[in-house]
């Protein structure tokens, strides 16, 4: 993300261009982002090949800057995070006005991710949603994807066997959670078996660990309603 913040627009240079009304800041036909509709999404799908190419470049870019796998996953996570933050508002405004509701509790937030976010990003819903069965970690939830789209053309070398490039998607999920006011840490883990005949070798679990204050608030709101 370092290269993005370096090219931050709207700085002093942007102000000068504004005065002259020329330059890259304004498109020649006068149509800015504000003149384009928000809803033209239903039919517009992107080519998976071009996404796979772009994503492989993103991974190798991140790979060139890091020393270990955790660092790499963190970088991928950071690339996804701003997307999640913005996606939340976009998905909400595309709903019918009477369905435009902010998620108020963990469950409605996770259902939104499993259904709406997955549908938007991958054209299908996530496969499963689970709550941690361990009583010590009530703050952990799991979103299961049997076959993450981002990993379709990624082959992980043996010495990096812990790496799961779906950390990028985990970053998007984290962005959605953070944006909605539910700060969380999200990590991606491969759980598919390595043996022959395994139905989903690339099965990935996104572990969502909410901050303690989220649970605290959830309990408070719940008790008020009861």
């Amino acid at each position, binding site marked *: 993300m370092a290269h*993005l913040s370096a090219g931050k627009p*709207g700085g002093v240079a*942007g102000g000068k261009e504004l005065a002259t009304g020329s330059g890259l800041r304004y498109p020649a036909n006068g149509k800015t982002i504000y003149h384009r509709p928000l809803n033209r999404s239903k039919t517009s799908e992107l080519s998976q090949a071009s996404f796979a190419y772009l994503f492989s470049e993103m991974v190798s870019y991140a790979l060139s800057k890091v020393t270990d796998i955790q660092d790499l996953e963190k970088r991928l996570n950071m690339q996804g995070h701003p997307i999640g933050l*913005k996606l939340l*508002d976009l998905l909400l405004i595309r709903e019918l006005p009477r369905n435009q509701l*902010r998620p108020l509790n963990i469950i409605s937030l996770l259902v939104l991710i499993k259904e709406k976010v997955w549908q938007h990003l991958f054209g299908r819903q996530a496969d499963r949603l689970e709550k941690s069965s361990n009583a010590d970690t009530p703050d952990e939830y799991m979103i299961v994807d049997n076959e993450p789209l981002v990993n379709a053309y990624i082959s992980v070398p043996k010495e990096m066997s812990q790496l799961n490039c779906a950390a990028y998607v985990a970053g998007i999920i984290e962005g959605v959670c953070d944006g*909605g*006011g539910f700060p969380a840490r999200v990590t991606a883990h491969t759980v598919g078996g390595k043996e022959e005949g395994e139905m989903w070798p690339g099965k990935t679990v996104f572990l969502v660990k909410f901050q303690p204050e989220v649970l605290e608030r959830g309990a408070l709101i719940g008790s008020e309603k009861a």
Partner: protein
Amino acid sequence: MSYYFAIIGTQDNPLFEYEFGTSKQGGDGQSRFSDQARHLNQFILHSSLDIVEEVQWTSGQLYLKVIDKFFNNYISCFMTAGNVKFLLLHQPTTPVSSSSTRNSTSIGANPQSPQTEEAVKNFFTEVYENYVKAIMSPFYKVNMEIRSPVFRSRVAAAGRKYL
């Protein structure tokens, strides 16, 4: 009727502000705040953020209606999904007396009438659409100030249209 509109980011930092007056009933769209009130407006608006935090978890609606009142200033709030607040301070030209609330229907005179609520809602909805377009820019990061002149003119147009 004078209005002061501000977008407040997730860190309670202002992202955008705009001041205007009513365009209904022959209004010229100019605000009528005194110089002193201009400074005060920012305080009043930001002081209502505490109430926003209380109200935001009781309802999933984006539009939270009038949430705060300070003498003759009314604050309407709209929460986006990304926890960014749109706050509109409206100040009727003449203070609202309790007896007149029931019969006045003009949106200028009575900030808590259903007609005003609806007008403010329409205003917020239109601004929200433009705000989402603004954040869709790949160069925009959350909590950055919105400086686009196009965005400003869109907000002004929404204000003229509804308020």
